[in-house]
Protein backbone atom coordinates (compact mmCIF):
# COMPACT_ATOMS: atom_id res chain seq x y z
CA UNK A 1 0.00 0.00 0.00
CA UNK A 2 1.37 3.35 -0.99
CA UNK A 3 1.54 6.41 1.21
CA UNK A 4 -0.73 8.76 -0.67
CA UNK A 5 -0.39 9.88 -4.23
CA UNK A 6 2.85 10.32 -6.07
CA UNK A 7 1.59 12.93 -8.50
CA UNK A 8 -1.13 15.51 -9.07
CA UNK A 9 -3.26 13.16 -11.15
CA UNK A 10 -4.06 10.60 -8.44
CA UNK A 11 -5.72 10.84 -5.06
CA UNK A 12 -9.13 11.99 -6.30
CA UNK A 13 -12.48 10.30 -5.79
CA UNK A 14 -12.88 7.05 -7.72
CA UNK A 15 -16.67 7.55 -7.91
CA UNK A 16 -17.02 11.34 -7.72
CA UNK A 17 -20.79 11.58 -7.88
CA UNK A 18 -21.57 9.33 -4.91
CA UNK A 19 -18.40 9.97 -2.92
CA UNK A 20 -18.91 13.70 -3.04
CA UNK A 21 -22.56 13.17 -2.06
CA UNK A 22 -21.52 11.23 1.06
CA UNK A 23 -18.75 13.74 1.83
CA UNK A 24 -21.11 16.68 1.46
CA UNK A 25 -23.61 15.18 3.87
CA UNK A 26 -20.87 14.84 6.46
CA UNK A 27 -19.72 18.42 5.95
CA UNK A 28 -23.33 19.64 6.07
CA UNK A 29 -23.82 17.77 9.33
CA UNK A 30 -20.60 19.21 10.76
CA UNK A 31 -21.58 22.81 9.97
CA UNK A 32 -25.20 22.45 11.01
CA UNK A 33 -24.30 20.67 14.26
CA UNK A 34 -21.14 22.49 15.36
CA UNK A 35 -18.74 20.38 17.38
CA UNK A 36 -19.89 17.05 15.97
CA UNK A 37 -16.85 15.22 14.58
CA UNK A 38 -17.52 13.41 11.30
CA UNK A 39 -15.42 11.07 9.14
CA UNK A 40 -14.54 12.05 5.60
CA UNK A 41 -13.09 9.32 3.43
CA UNK A 42 -12.05 8.72 -0.14
CA UNK A 43 -9.43 11.34 -0.90
CA UNK A 44 -5.65 10.89 -0.83
CA UNK A 45 -4.22 14.36 -1.36
CA UNK A 46 -0.48 15.01 -1.32
CA UNK A 47 1.12 15.69 2.06
CA UNK A 48 0.75 17.69 4.14
CA UNK A 49 -3.00 18.04 3.39
CA UNK A 50 -5.21 15.75 5.45
CA UNK A 51 -7.56 13.24 3.87
CA UNK A 52 -10.57 15.10 5.29
CA UNK A 53 -9.44 18.46 3.90
CA UNK A 54 -8.74 16.74 0.58
CA UNK A 55 -12.23 15.26 0.45
CA UNK A 56 -13.72 18.66 1.28
CA UNK A 57 -11.70 20.20 -1.56
CA UNK A 58 -12.90 17.56 -4.03
CA UNK A 59 -16.49 18.08 -2.88
CA UNK A 60 -16.75 21.86 -2.81
CA UNK A 61 -14.07 23.48 -4.97
CA UNK A 62 -14.17 24.27 -8.66
CA UNK A 63 -13.44 27.05 -11.13
CA UNK A 64 -15.84 29.32 -9.23
CA UNK A 65 -14.05 29.19 -5.89
CA UNK A 66 -10.77 31.09 -5.44
CA UNK A 67 -8.59 29.14 -3.01
CA UNK A 68 -5.82 30.30 -0.71
CA UNK A 69 -3.16 27.89 0.50
CA UNK A 70 -1.42 29.22 3.59
CA UNK A 71 2.11 28.52 4.83
CA UNK A 72 3.38 25.00 4.41
CA UNK A 73 0.32 24.01 2.36
CA UNK A 74 1.39 26.44 -0.33
CA UNK A 75 3.62 23.87 -2.02
CA UNK A 76 3.90 22.76 -5.65
CA UNK A 77 2.43 19.30 -5.01
CA UNK A 78 -0.76 20.72 -3.46
CA UNK A 79 -1.09 23.58 -5.89
CA UNK A 80 -0.94 21.11 -8.77
CA UNK A 81 -3.33 18.71 -7.08
CA UNK A 82 -5.95 21.40 -6.44
CA UNK A 83 -5.56 22.75 -9.96
CA UNK A 84 -5.88 19.34 -11.58
CA UNK A 85 -8.72 17.89 -9.51
CA UNK A 86 -10.76 21.01 -8.77
CA UNK A 87 -9.75 23.59 -11.35
CA UNK A 88 -9.92 26.17 -8.58
CA UNK A 89 -7.88 29.35 -9.09
CA UNK A 90 -5.28 30.03 -6.38
CA UNK A 91 -5.37 33.47 -4.81
CA UNK A 92 -4.33 35.68 -1.92
CA UNK A 93 -6.00 35.47 1.46
CA UNK A 94 -8.32 38.44 0.94
CA UNK A 95 -10.06 37.08 -2.17
CA UNK A 96 -10.37 33.47 -1.07
CA UNK A 97 -13.69 31.63 -0.85
CA UNK A 98 -11.82 28.78 0.83
CA UNK A 99 -8.52 28.96 2.66
CA UNK A 100 -6.51 25.97 3.87
CA UNK A 101 -3.77 26.08 6.50
CA UNK A 102 -2.69 25.47 10.04
CA UNK A 103 -4.02 27.74 12.77
CA UNK A 104 -0.72 29.63 12.91
CA UNK A 105 -0.45 29.94 9.13
CA UNK A 106 -4.00 31.21 8.69
CA UNK A 107 -3.68 33.89 11.38
CA UNK A 108 -4.34 36.79 11.45
CA UNK A 109 -7.93 36.06 10.57
CA UNK A 110 -9.01 39.60 9.83
CA UNK A 111 -7.35 39.40 6.41
CA UNK A 112 -10.10 37.11 5.10
CA UNK A 113 -13.42 38.05 3.52
CA UNK A 114 -16.26 38.32 6.03
CA UNK A 115 -18.96 39.06 3.45
CA UNK A 116 -20.87 42.27 2.96
CA UNK A 117 -23.53 43.70 5.20
CA UNK A 118 -26.15 42.96 2.52
CA UNK A 119 -24.47 39.77 1.26
CA UNK A 120 -22.95 38.16 4.37
CA UNK A 121 -22.64 34.85 2.47
CA UNK A 122 -19.77 36.23 0.41
CA UNK A 123 -17.30 35.20 3.04
CA UNK A 124 -14.45 32.78 3.41
CA UNK A 125 -14.60 29.25 4.77
CA UNK A 126 -11.39 28.39 6.62
CA UNK A 127 -10.16 24.81 6.63
CA UNK A 128 -7.91 24.61 9.66
CA UNK A 129 -5.58 21.61 9.81
CA UNK A 130 -5.05 20.66 13.45
CA UNK A 131 -2.76 18.02 15.01
CA UNK A 132 -5.55 16.64 17.16
CA UNK A 133 -9.32 16.94 17.20
CA UNK A 134 -11.52 15.83 20.06
CA UNK A 135 -14.76 16.67 21.84
CA UNK A 136 -12.93 18.37 24.70
CA UNK A 137 -11.78 21.85 25.60
CA UNK A 138 -13.81 24.90 24.77
CA UNK A 139 -17.56 24.94 25.28
CA UNK A 140 -19.72 25.53 22.18
CA UNK A 141 -23.25 26.96 22.21
CA UNK A 142 -25.58 28.30 19.54
CA UNK A 143 -27.68 27.12 16.59
CA UNK A 144 -27.20 23.42 15.89
CA UNK A 145 -26.43 22.66 19.52
CA UNK A 146 -29.20 21.57 21.89
CA UNK A 147 -27.39 22.45 25.11
CA UNK A 148 -23.63 22.48 24.74
CA UNK A 149 -20.77 20.63 23.04
CA UNK A 150 -17.03 20.72 23.51
CA UNK A 151 -14.32 20.94 20.90
CA UNK A 152 -10.55 21.13 21.01
CA UNK A 153 -10.24 24.41 19.11
CA UNK A 154 -6.87 26.15 19.45
CA UNK A 155 -8.22 29.42 20.86
CA UNK A 156 -11.51 31.15 21.66
CA UNK A 157 -10.65 34.81 21.08
CA UNK A 158 -10.75 34.85 17.24
CA UNK A 159 -14.16 33.16 17.32
CA UNK A 160 -15.48 35.60 19.87
CA UNK A 161 -14.32 38.48 17.66
CA UNK A 162 -15.89 36.76 14.65
CA UNK A 163 -19.17 36.18 16.48
CA UNK A 164 -19.38 39.89 17.19
CA UNK A 165 -19.44 40.57 13.44
CA UNK A 166 -22.58 38.49 12.86
CA UNK A 167 -24.21 38.17 10.36
CA UNK A 168 -20.88 38.83 8.69
CA UNK A 169 -17.91 36.69 9.57
CA UNK A 170 -15.94 33.63 8.50
CA UNK A 171 -16.92 29.99 8.90
CA UNK A 172 -14.39 27.39 9.94
CA UNK A 173 -13.92 23.66 9.77
CA UNK A 174 -11.20 21.77 11.59
CA UNK A 175 -9.59 18.77 9.91
CA UNK A 176 -7.34 16.11 11.34
CA UNK A 177 -6.61 12.92 9.40
CA UNK A 178 -9.93 11.73 8.07
CA UNK A 179 -11.98 13.64 10.67
CA UNK A 180 -13.68 16.99 10.45
CA UNK A 181 -15.64 19.32 12.74
CA UNK A 182 -17.43 22.54 11.83
CA UNK A 183 -17.56 25.90 13.54
CA UNK A 184 -19.86 28.33 11.71
CA UNK A 185 -19.90 32.02 12.59
CA UNK A 186 -22.95 31.57 14.83
CA UNK A 187 -21.21 29.38 17.38
CA UNK A 188 -20.37 30.90 20.75
CA UNK A 189 -16.98 29.61 21.90
CA UNK A 190 -16.12 29.99 25.60
CA UNK A 191 -13.86 28.60 28.28
CA UNK A 192 -15.43 25.49 29.80
Amino acid at each position, binding site marked *: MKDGPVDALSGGFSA*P*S*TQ*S*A*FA*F*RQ*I*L*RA*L*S*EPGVIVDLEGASPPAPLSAAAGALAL*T*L*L*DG*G*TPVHLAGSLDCAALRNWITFHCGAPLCDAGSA*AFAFGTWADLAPFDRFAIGL*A*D*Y*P*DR*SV*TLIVEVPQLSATGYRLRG*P*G*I*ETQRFLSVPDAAPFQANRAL*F*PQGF*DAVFTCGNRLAGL*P*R*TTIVEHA
Partner: protein
Amino acid sequence: MTDQAYNFAYLDEQTKRMIRRALLKAVAIPGYQVPFASREMPMPYGWGTGGVQVTAACLTPDDVLKVIDQGADDTTNAVSIRKFFQRTAGVEVTQSTALASVIQTRHRIPETALSAGQILVYQVPIPEPLRFLEPRETETRKMHELEEYGLMHVKLYEDIARHGQIATSYAYPVKVEGRYVMDPSPIPKFDNPKLSGSAALQLFGAGREQRIYALPPFTDVVSLDFDDHPFTPTKANHDCDLCGASASYLDEVIIDDQGSRMFVCSDTDFCETRREMGHVGRLGTPSNKGAQA
Protein backbone atom coordinates in the same frame (compact mmCIF):
# COMPACT_ATOMS: atom_id res chain seq x y z
CA MET B 1 -33.57 1.34 -11.16
CA THR B 2 -31.82 4.57 -12.06
CA ASP B 3 -31.85 6.26 -15.42
CA GLN B 4 -28.28 5.86 -16.69
CA ALA B 5 -28.58 8.79 -19.09
CA TYR B 6 -28.37 11.24 -16.18
CA ASN B 7 -25.92 11.83 -13.37
CA PHE B 8 -26.81 10.59 -9.86
CA ALA B 9 -29.78 12.68 -8.68
CA TYR B 10 -30.02 14.36 -12.11
CA LEU B 11 -27.89 17.46 -11.49
CA ASP B 12 -24.37 17.65 -12.88
CA GLU B 13 -21.56 17.78 -10.32
CA GLN B 14 -20.75 21.43 -10.93
CA THR B 15 -24.31 22.45 -10.23
CA LYS B 16 -24.39 20.33 -7.09
CA ARG B 17 -21.18 21.94 -5.82
CA MET B 18 -22.69 25.39 -6.34
CA ILE B 19 -25.85 24.41 -4.44
CA ARG B 20 -23.87 22.66 -1.71
CA ARG B 21 -21.75 25.75 -1.10
CA ALA B 22 -24.92 27.83 -0.86
CA LEU B 23 -26.38 25.33 1.63
CA LEU B 24 -23.32 25.54 3.85
CA LYS B 25 -23.54 29.35 3.93
CA ALA B 26 -27.26 29.03 4.62
CA VAL B 27 -26.73 26.89 7.75
CA ALA B 28 -23.98 29.28 8.86
CA ILE B 29 -26.36 32.28 8.65
CA PRO B 30 -29.72 30.90 9.79
CA GLY B 31 -32.69 32.62 8.17
CA TYR B 32 -30.61 34.58 5.64
CA GLN B 33 -31.55 33.96 2.00
CA VAL B 34 -28.44 32.90 0.07
CA PRO B 35 -28.65 33.63 -3.68
CA PHE B 36 -27.88 30.61 -5.84
CA ALA B 37 -27.78 30.02 -9.59
CA SER B 38 -30.93 27.96 -9.78
CA ARG B 39 -31.13 25.82 -12.90
CA GLU B 40 -34.02 25.08 -15.16
CA MET B 41 -35.28 21.72 -13.99
CA PRO B 42 -37.38 19.25 -15.96
CA MET B 43 -40.44 20.39 -14.01
CA PRO B 44 -41.91 23.90 -14.01
CA TYR B 45 -40.82 26.71 -11.73
CA GLY B 46 -43.35 26.96 -8.94
CA TRP B 47 -43.73 23.18 -8.73
CA GLY B 48 -40.88 22.56 -6.34
CA THR B 49 -37.75 23.20 -8.41
CA GLY B 50 -36.00 24.81 -5.45
CA GLY B 51 -36.81 21.91 -3.15
CA VAL B 52 -35.86 19.42 -5.85
CA GLN B 53 -32.47 21.08 -6.36
CA VAL B 54 -31.78 21.12 -2.62
CA THR B 55 -32.83 17.48 -2.28
CA ALA B 56 -30.73 16.49 -5.29
CA ALA B 57 -27.69 18.21 -3.79
CA CYS B 58 -28.20 16.43 -0.45
CA LEU B 59 -29.17 12.90 -1.45
CA THR B 60 -26.80 9.97 -1.09
CA PRO B 61 -27.53 6.45 -2.34
CA ASP B 62 -28.18 5.43 1.30
CA ASP B 63 -31.04 7.86 1.82
CA VAL B 64 -34.68 6.97 2.30
CA LEU B 65 -36.81 9.67 0.73
CA LYS B 66 -40.33 10.80 1.57
CA VAL B 67 -42.16 13.44 -0.49
CA ILE B 68 -45.35 15.14 0.68
CA ASP B 69 -47.57 17.86 -0.68
CA GLN B 70 -50.27 19.29 1.62
CA GLY B 71 -49.13 16.69 4.13
CA ALA B 72 -50.03 13.80 1.83
CA ASP B 73 -47.76 11.31 0.09
CA ASP B 74 -50.26 10.55 -2.66
CA THR B 75 -51.01 14.01 -4.08
CA THR B 76 -50.01 14.16 -7.74
CA ASN B 77 -47.07 16.53 -7.43
CA ALA B 78 -45.64 14.55 -4.51
CA VAL B 79 -45.97 11.38 -6.59
CA SER B 80 -44.28 13.06 -9.53
CA ILE B 81 -41.31 14.35 -7.50
CA ARG B 82 -40.87 11.03 -5.69
CA LYS B 83 -40.84 9.23 -9.04
CA PHE B 84 -38.26 11.69 -10.37
CA PHE B 85 -35.82 10.77 -7.60
CA GLN B 86 -36.54 7.07 -7.85
CA ARG B 87 -35.66 7.31 -11.50
CA THR B 88 -32.62 9.59 -11.31
CA ALA B 89 -31.12 8.62 -7.93
CA GLY B 90 -32.47 5.13 -7.36
CA VAL B 91 -33.03 5.92 -3.70
CA GLU B 92 -35.39 4.00 -1.49
CA VAL B 93 -38.67 5.81 -0.86
CA THR B 94 -41.10 5.64 2.01
CA GLN B 95 -44.34 7.18 3.20
CA SER B 96 -43.29 6.83 6.81
CA THR B 97 -42.10 10.03 8.46
CA ALA B 98 -40.14 8.05 11.03
CA LEU B 99 -38.29 5.93 8.46
CA ALA B 100 -37.32 8.76 6.10
CA SER B 101 -33.87 10.34 6.21
CA VAL B 102 -34.80 13.13 3.79
CA ILE B 103 -38.33 14.54 3.52
CA GLN B 104 -39.27 17.00 0.82
CA THR B 105 -42.41 18.93 1.64
CA ARG B 106 -44.78 21.50 0.28
CA HIS B 107 -46.95 23.44 2.74
CA ARG B 108 -46.72 21.16 5.81
CA ILE B 109 -44.44 19.99 8.58
CA PRO B 110 -45.21 16.36 9.47
CA GLU B 111 -47.14 15.80 12.72
CA THR B 112 -44.67 13.19 13.96
CA ALA B 113 -41.76 14.96 15.64
CA LEU B 114 -38.62 14.80 13.51
CA SER B 115 -35.47 13.29 14.92
CA ALA B 116 -31.76 14.02 14.78
CA GLY B 117 -30.17 13.22 11.44
CA GLN B 118 -33.34 13.85 9.43
CA ILE B 119 -33.46 16.61 6.82
CA LEU B 120 -36.68 18.42 5.98
CA VAL B 121 -36.56 20.21 2.60
CA TYR B 122 -39.23 22.85 1.99
CA GLN B 123 -40.43 23.98 -1.42
CA VAL B 124 -40.67 27.76 -1.29
CA PRO B 125 -42.57 29.93 -3.77
CA ILE B 126 -41.68 33.43 -2.49
CA PRO B 127 -38.79 33.32 -0.01
CA GLU B 128 -38.89 37.01 0.85
CA PRO B 129 -41.16 37.62 3.87
CA LEU B 130 -41.24 41.34 3.07
CA ARG B 131 -42.11 40.88 -0.61
CA PHE B 132 -45.80 41.66 -0.31
CA LEU B 133 -45.02 44.80 1.63
CA GLU B 134 -42.18 45.92 -0.65
CA PRO B 135 -41.92 44.32 -4.10
CA ARG B 136 -38.36 45.45 -4.81
CA GLU B 137 -35.53 43.07 -4.03
CA THR B 138 -33.12 46.02 -3.92
CA GLU B 139 -35.19 47.52 -1.08
CA THR B 140 -35.88 44.35 0.92
CA ARG B 141 -32.20 43.41 0.85
CA LYS B 142 -31.45 46.75 2.48
CA MET B 143 -34.18 46.19 5.05
CA HIS B 144 -32.67 42.85 6.05
CA GLU B 145 -29.21 44.41 6.21
CA LEU B 146 -30.40 47.14 8.56
CA GLU B 147 -32.85 44.91 10.47
CA GLU B 148 -35.56 47.31 9.44
CA TYR B 149 -38.54 45.13 10.12
CA GLY B 150 -40.86 47.90 11.25
CA LEU B 151 -42.94 47.56 8.08
CA MET B 152 -43.79 43.98 8.97
CA HIS B 153 -44.88 44.94 12.46
CA VAL B 154 -46.95 47.78 11.05
CA LYS B 155 -48.70 45.35 8.72
CA LEU B 156 -49.44 42.91 11.52
CA TYR B 157 -50.64 45.71 13.73
CA GLU B 158 -52.95 47.04 11.04
CA ASP B 159 -54.53 43.58 11.02
CA ILE B 160 -55.18 43.88 14.73
CA ALA B 161 -56.63 47.36 14.36
CA ARG B 162 -58.98 46.21 11.60
CA HIS B 163 -59.83 42.64 12.64
CA GLY B 164 -58.92 42.47 16.31
CA GLN B 165 -56.28 39.88 15.51
CA ILE B 166 -53.45 39.09 13.14
CA ALA B 167 -55.14 37.92 9.94
CA THR B 168 -52.22 35.95 8.53
CA SER B 169 -53.03 32.26 8.61
CA TYR B 170 -50.21 30.69 6.61
CA ALA B 171 -46.68 31.70 5.60
CA TYR B 172 -46.69 33.42 8.97
CA PRO B 173 -43.39 35.32 9.37
CA VAL B 174 -40.83 34.29 11.95
CA LYS B 175 -37.64 35.73 13.39
CA VAL B 176 -34.62 33.47 13.50
CA GLU B 177 -32.10 33.66 16.35
CA GLY B 178 -33.18 37.22 16.99
CA ARG B 179 -31.83 38.41 13.65
CA TYR B 180 -33.42 37.60 10.29
CA VAL B 181 -37.13 37.70 9.60
CA MET B 182 -37.88 34.62 7.52
CA ASP B 183 -40.74 33.21 5.48
CA PRO B 184 -41.40 29.66 6.67
CA SER B 185 -42.96 28.84 3.24
CA PRO B 186 -46.76 28.60 3.02
CA ILE B 187 -47.20 26.21 5.94
CA PRO B 188 -50.27 26.90 8.09
CA LYS B 189 -49.37 28.87 11.20
CA PHE B 190 -50.41 25.75 13.10
CA ASP B 191 -47.02 24.32 12.03
CA ASN B 192 -44.93 27.33 13.09
CA PRO B 193 -44.08 26.07 16.58
CA LYS B 194 -42.44 22.99 15.03
CA LEU B 195 -39.89 25.22 13.28
CA SER B 196 -38.18 26.09 16.55
CA GLY B 197 -35.84 23.76 18.35
CA SER B 198 -36.38 20.92 15.90
CA ALA B 199 -33.86 18.10 16.12
CA ALA B 200 -33.87 17.89 12.31
CA LEU B 201 -32.07 20.11 9.83
CA GLN B 202 -34.51 22.28 7.87
CA LEU B 203 -33.54 23.49 4.39
CA PHE B 204 -35.57 25.83 2.19
CA GLY B 205 -35.23 26.04 -1.60
CA ALA B 206 -36.81 28.67 -3.87
CA GLY B 207 -35.90 27.81 -7.47
CA ARG B 208 -37.50 30.59 -9.47
CA GLU B 209 -36.43 33.20 -6.95
CA GLN B 210 -32.94 31.68 -6.72
CA ARG B 211 -32.67 31.57 -2.95
CA ILE B 212 -31.70 28.95 -0.37
CA TYR B 213 -32.01 29.31 3.40
CA ALA B 214 -31.79 27.06 6.40
CA LEU B 215 -32.51 26.39 10.05
CA PRO B 216 -29.91 24.19 11.73
CA PRO B 217 -31.25 21.83 14.40
CA PHE B 218 -32.16 23.51 17.69
CA THR B 219 -32.39 26.97 16.18
CA ASP B 220 -34.50 29.54 17.96
CA VAL B 221 -37.45 30.53 15.76
CA VAL B 222 -40.09 32.96 17.02
CA SER B 223 -43.37 33.77 15.26
CA LEU B 224 -43.77 37.54 15.16
CA ASP B 225 -46.41 38.86 17.54
CA PHE B 226 -47.19 41.53 20.13
CA ASP B 227 -47.32 41.29 23.92
CA ASP B 228 -51.04 42.03 23.93
CA HIS B 229 -51.72 39.83 20.89
CA PRO B 230 -49.55 36.75 21.29
CA PHE B 231 -49.14 34.31 18.42
CA THR B 232 -51.64 31.43 18.51
CA PRO B 233 -51.48 28.40 16.24
CA THR B 234 -54.93 27.41 15.01
CA LYS B 235 -56.66 24.48 13.37
CA ALA B 236 -60.22 23.42 12.63
CA ASN B 237 -62.04 22.86 15.90
CA HIS B 238 -62.71 19.15 15.30
CA ASP B 239 -61.15 15.75 15.75
CA CYS B 240 -60.07 13.72 12.74
CA ASP B 241 -63.09 11.81 11.47
CA LEU B 242 -60.93 8.87 10.41
CA CYS B 243 -58.44 8.40 13.25
CA GLY B 244 -59.90 10.58 16.00
CA ALA B 245 -56.73 12.63 16.47
CA SER B 246 -57.51 15.82 18.37
CA ALA B 247 -54.28 17.75 17.83
CA SER B 248 -53.41 17.26 14.18
CA TYR B 249 -53.96 19.71 11.34
CA LEU B 250 -57.17 18.89 9.46
CA ASP B 251 -58.37 19.11 5.88
CA GLU B 252 -62.03 19.89 5.43
CA VAL B 253 -63.73 17.64 2.88
CA ILE B 254 -67.18 18.23 1.41
CA ILE B 255 -68.83 14.83 1.20
CA ASP B 256 -72.28 15.40 -0.36
CA ASP B 257 -74.38 17.88 -2.30
CA GLN B 258 -75.86 19.24 0.91
CA GLY B 259 -72.41 20.48 1.86
CA SER B 260 -71.86 18.05 4.72
CA ARG B 261 -68.32 18.19 5.95
CA MET B 262 -65.84 15.80 7.34
CA PHE B 263 -62.46 16.60 8.80
CA VAL B 264 -59.43 14.41 8.17
CA CYS B 265 -55.77 14.65 9.04
CA SER B 266 -53.80 16.46 6.34
CA ASP B 267 -50.80 14.27 7.28
CA THR B 268 -51.77 10.96 5.66
CA ASP B 269 -48.93 8.95 7.21
CA PHE B 270 -49.84 10.18 10.69
CA CYS B 271 -53.50 9.31 10.17
CA GLU B 272 -52.87 5.84 8.74
CA THR B 273 -50.36 4.99 11.44
CA ARG B 274 -52.89 5.92 14.09
CA ARG B 275 -55.61 3.86 12.45
CA GLU B 276 -53.28 0.88 12.21
CA MET B 277 -52.75 1.29 15.93
CA GLY B 278 -56.50 0.92 16.41
CA HIS B 279 -57.67 4.54 16.68
CA VAL B 280 -61.01 5.14 15.00
CA GLY B 281 -62.69 8.47 14.34
CA ARG B 282 -66.34 9.49 14.03
CA LEU B 283 -66.73 8.30 10.42
CA GLY B 284 -63.83 5.84 10.30
CA THR B 285 -63.84 2.09 10.30
CA PRO B 286 -61.24 -0.03 12.05
CA SER B 287 -58.15 -0.28 9.90
CA ASN B 288 -57.68 -3.41 7.88
CA LYS B 289 -54.01 -3.20 6.99
CA GLY B 290 -53.30 -4.94 3.73
CA ALA B 291 -56.54 -3.88 2.12
CA GLN B 292 -55.07 -0.37 2.08
CA ALA B 293 -52.27 -1.27 -0.29
